[in-house]
C-alpha cells in the first residue's frame, strides 16, 4: 500500500497550529479567565473569524527569525571590528542615536510587555498566537538596538544610561507616557493604539525613511537593526489592519468606540513622532527626504488609501488629521529650535544648521523656512558667535496629555501659540492643542495622574531644585560631556581627531 505523504499547505498548517489551543472551560467561568475582554464595551461574537493572513506557524517563525538574527549579528560584528563609527558622515549624526536609544528602544521593551499582557487577555487563539509572536519580536528589537548602539557608547557620550534616563528625563516622558497610556488601557484599545494607529499608520515614518537616512549617513549597524526590526513590522502592520477589520466586523456597536480610539491614538502618535521630524530634518547630516515629504508619502498617501478602505465600516479619517497635515511645514523646525534652547538639559547635543543645510530646508519648505525659521537661526548663530550661545533657563510648560512642551502653533497661524486650558475638579490643566484637550476630557481620571517632569522638579521630587542638580544627579547626564552645544563638545573634538583635523583632548580612538 502506497503511503501518501502529502505536505500540508499554509492554511492547513495554520489551522492545526491554533486548533487545540482553545477550549470551552468547564470548571471556571470564561469571564473569570478573561476578565479584560468585556470591560471596554467591545463585542466579539465569533473569535473564529480572526484571520492571520501570514499564517505563520511556530516552526517557520523560529526558522526565519533565526535567519534574520544571524544576518544582523554578522553585520554588528563587522561594524565593530572595522571601527564602523569612523565611517559615518559626521558625529552630529550620533545624536539621533542618543535620542533613539532613550526614546525608542525602551518602547520596544514596553511593547514586548504589552503584547504579552494583551495576548493573555484574549479568548481567541488566533489573537493569542499573534500577540505572542509580536511580543517575542519586540523583545528582539529592544535587545538588538541596545547591542547595535553599545558600540557607539564606547566612542561617544550620552549613551551610557538610557533605561534610567527613559524613566526620568523631561523629553523622554513624551515616549514613556505614550506607551504607559497604551499599556494601561484595555487589550482592544492597546491593539488599536499600537498595532493599528502606531504600527500600521505611523511607524513607517521612523523605520523606513529615517533608517534609509541612517544608511545614507554610513551607519551600517543602525540601518541593519532598523530594517531587521522592520521586517517583523510587516507582520505587525498586517496584524494591525486585521485587528481593526475584525473588531469592526464583529458588531456595529464597536464602530464608535474604535473611531474614538483611532482619533486619540493617531494624535498621540503624531505628537510622539514630532521627535522623529527633528531627527530627519536636523540630525541626518546627509539628507535623504524631508519630514514633510515623508509625511506626504507615508501618511497622506498611504493613510489616505487606508482610511478610504475603512469607509465601508463607517470609519472616517482621524479627527485632527488636517492639523497634522498642516503641521508638516513647521514641525521639525519648531522642535529643533526648542531643543536648541534646552541643550543643557539633554543627553545629546544641538547646533545651528550649516548654511548648506539651511538652503536644503529652504528648498524643501519653500513657504515656511525662510519666512519663519531661518531668521531665528541667523539670530542664534550671531549670539553664539558673540559668546552668548543661548540657553533657556526657564522650565517649559508641558501639555498634560502628550507631555511635549507647549511649543506648537495654531493651524494656519504659525506665529500664534497653540494653547488650551480647562479646570477639572478645581485644578487647572494646560494642553498643546484642541486634540490633546479632547483626549483629557474623555478620560480625566487617567490624565490627572500624569507624571509631568517640570511639575515634579518644582515639587522637589527630582533630587534638587536647580536644573544643574536635576540634570546631573537625577538624570545621570554628565555635565560638560553629554549636554550643551555640539561645537566644541568632547564628541566634536573626538570626531575632529578621528578625521585627523585636530588633536583631541583624549586619545581613545587612536587605535
Amino acid at each position, binding site marked *: 500500500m502506497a503511503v501518501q505523504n502529502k505536505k500540508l*499547505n*499554509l*492554511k492547513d498548517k495554520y489551522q492545526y497550529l491554533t486548533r487545540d489551543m482553545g477550549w470551552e472551560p468547564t470548571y471556571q467561568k470564561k469571564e473569570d479567565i478573561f476578565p479584560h475582554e468585556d470591560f471596554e464595551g467591545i463585542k466579539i461574537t465569533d473569535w473564529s473569524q480572526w484571520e492571520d*493572513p*501570514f*499564517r*505563520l506557524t511556530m516552526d*517557520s517563525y523560529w526558522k*526565519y527569525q533565526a*535567519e*534574520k538574527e544571524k*544576518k544582523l549579528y554578522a553585520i554588528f560584528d563587522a561594524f565593530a571590528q572595522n571601527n564602523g563609527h569612523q565611517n559615518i558622515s559626521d558625529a552630529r549624526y550620533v545624536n539621533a542615536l542618543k535620542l533613539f536609544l532613550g526614546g525608542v528602544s525602551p518602547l520596544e521593551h514596553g511593547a514586548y510587555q504589552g503584547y504579552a499582557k494583551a495576548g493573555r487577555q484574549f479568548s481567541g487563539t488566533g489573537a493569542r498566537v499573534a500577540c505572542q509572536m509580536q511580543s517575542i519580536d519586540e523583545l528582539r528589537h529592544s535587545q538588538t538596538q541596545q547591542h547595535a548602539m553599545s558600540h557607539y557608547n564606547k566612542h561617544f557620550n550620552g549613551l551610557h544610561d538610557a533605561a534610567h534616563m527613559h524613566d526620568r528625563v523631561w523629553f523622554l516622558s513624551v515616549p514613556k507616557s505614550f506607551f504607559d497610556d497604551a499599556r494601561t488601557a484595555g487589550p482592544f484599545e492597546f491593539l488599536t493604539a499600537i498595532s493599528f494607529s502606531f504600527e500600521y499608520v505611523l511607524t*513607517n515614518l521612523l*523605520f*523606513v*525613511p529615517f*533608517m*534609509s*537616512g541612517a*544608511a*545614507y549617513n554610513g551607519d551600517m549597524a543602525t*540601518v541593519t537593526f532598523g*530594517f531587521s526590526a*522592520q*521586517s517583523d*513590522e*510587516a*507582520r505587525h*502592520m*498586517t496584524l494591525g*489592519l486585521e485587528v481593526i477589520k475584525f473588531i469592526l466586523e464583529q458588531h456595529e456597536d464597536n464602530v464608535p468606540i474604535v473611531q474614538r480610539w483611532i482619533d486619540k491614538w493617531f494624535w498621540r502618535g503624531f505628537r510622539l513622532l514630532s521627535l522623529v521630524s527633528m531627527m530627519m530634518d536636523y540630525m541626518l547630516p546627509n539628507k*535623504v*527626504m524631508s519630514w514633510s515629504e515623508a509625511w506626504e508619502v507615508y501618511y497622506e*498617501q*498611504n493613510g*489616505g*488609501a*487606508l482610511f*478610504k*478602505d475603512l469607509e465601508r465600516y463607517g470609519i472616517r479619517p482621524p479627527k485632527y488629521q488636517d492639523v497634522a497635515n498642516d503641521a508638516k511645514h513647521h514641525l521639525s523646525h519648531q522642535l529643533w529650535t526648542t531643543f536648541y534652547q534646552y541643550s543643557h538639559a539633554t543627553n545629546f547635543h544641538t547646533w545651528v544648521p550649516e548654511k548648506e543645510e539651511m538652503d536644503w530646508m529652504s528648498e524643501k519648505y519653500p513657504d515656511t523656512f525662510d519666512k519663519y525659521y531661518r531668521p531665528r537661526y541667523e539670530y542664534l548663530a550671531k549670539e553664539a558667535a558673540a559668546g552668548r550661545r543661548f540657553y533657556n533657563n526657564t522650565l517649559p510648560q508641558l501639555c498634560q496629555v502628550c507631555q511635549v512642551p507647549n511649543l506648537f502653533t495654531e493651524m494656519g497661524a504659525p506665529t500664534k501659540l497653540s494653547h488650551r486650558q480647562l479646570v477639572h475638579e478645581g485644578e487647572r490643566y494646560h494642553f498643546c492643542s484642541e486634540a490633546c484637550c479632547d483626549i483629557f476630557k474623555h478620560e480625566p481620571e487617567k490624565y490627572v495622574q500624569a507624571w509631568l517632569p517640570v511639575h515634579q522638579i518644582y515639587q522637589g521630587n527630582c533630587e534638587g531644585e536647580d536644573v544643574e542638580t536635576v540634570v546631573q544627579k537625577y538624570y545621570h547626564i554628565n555635565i560638560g560631556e553629554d549636554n550643551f552645544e555640539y561645537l566644541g563638545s568632547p564628541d566634536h573634538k573626538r570626531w575632529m581627531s578621528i578625521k585627523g583635523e585636530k588633536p583631541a583632548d583624549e586619545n581613545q580612538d587612536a587605535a
Partner: protein
Amino acid sequence: MSQLVFIVFQDNDDSRYLAEAVMDDNPHAEIQHQPAMIRIQAEKRLVMNRETMEEKLGRDWDVQEMLVNVISIGGNVDEDDDHFILEWK
C-alpha cells in the same frame, strides 16, 4: 482618489530578484530606489508569484522567505503557498 499599495525591500541580493519578479508580474507598478531600500508601489494591487520567483532564482522558493527581506507593506494581505498579494478592494 488614487489608492496605492506598496512594498519595501532591503536592497540586497535576494531582493533584486524579488523586485524583478514583482515588476514582471505587475506592469502597472512603479519602482523607486532609495538608500538601502527598494520601494515598489502600484494602484490598488500588487502580486508576487512563487512561480515567477522560482524561475528567477532557478530553485524552489517558499513565499514566506520574503519575510526576511521585506521592510514594510501597505494594503490588505492575502498570502498562500503560491502568491503574496497586497490590495485595496
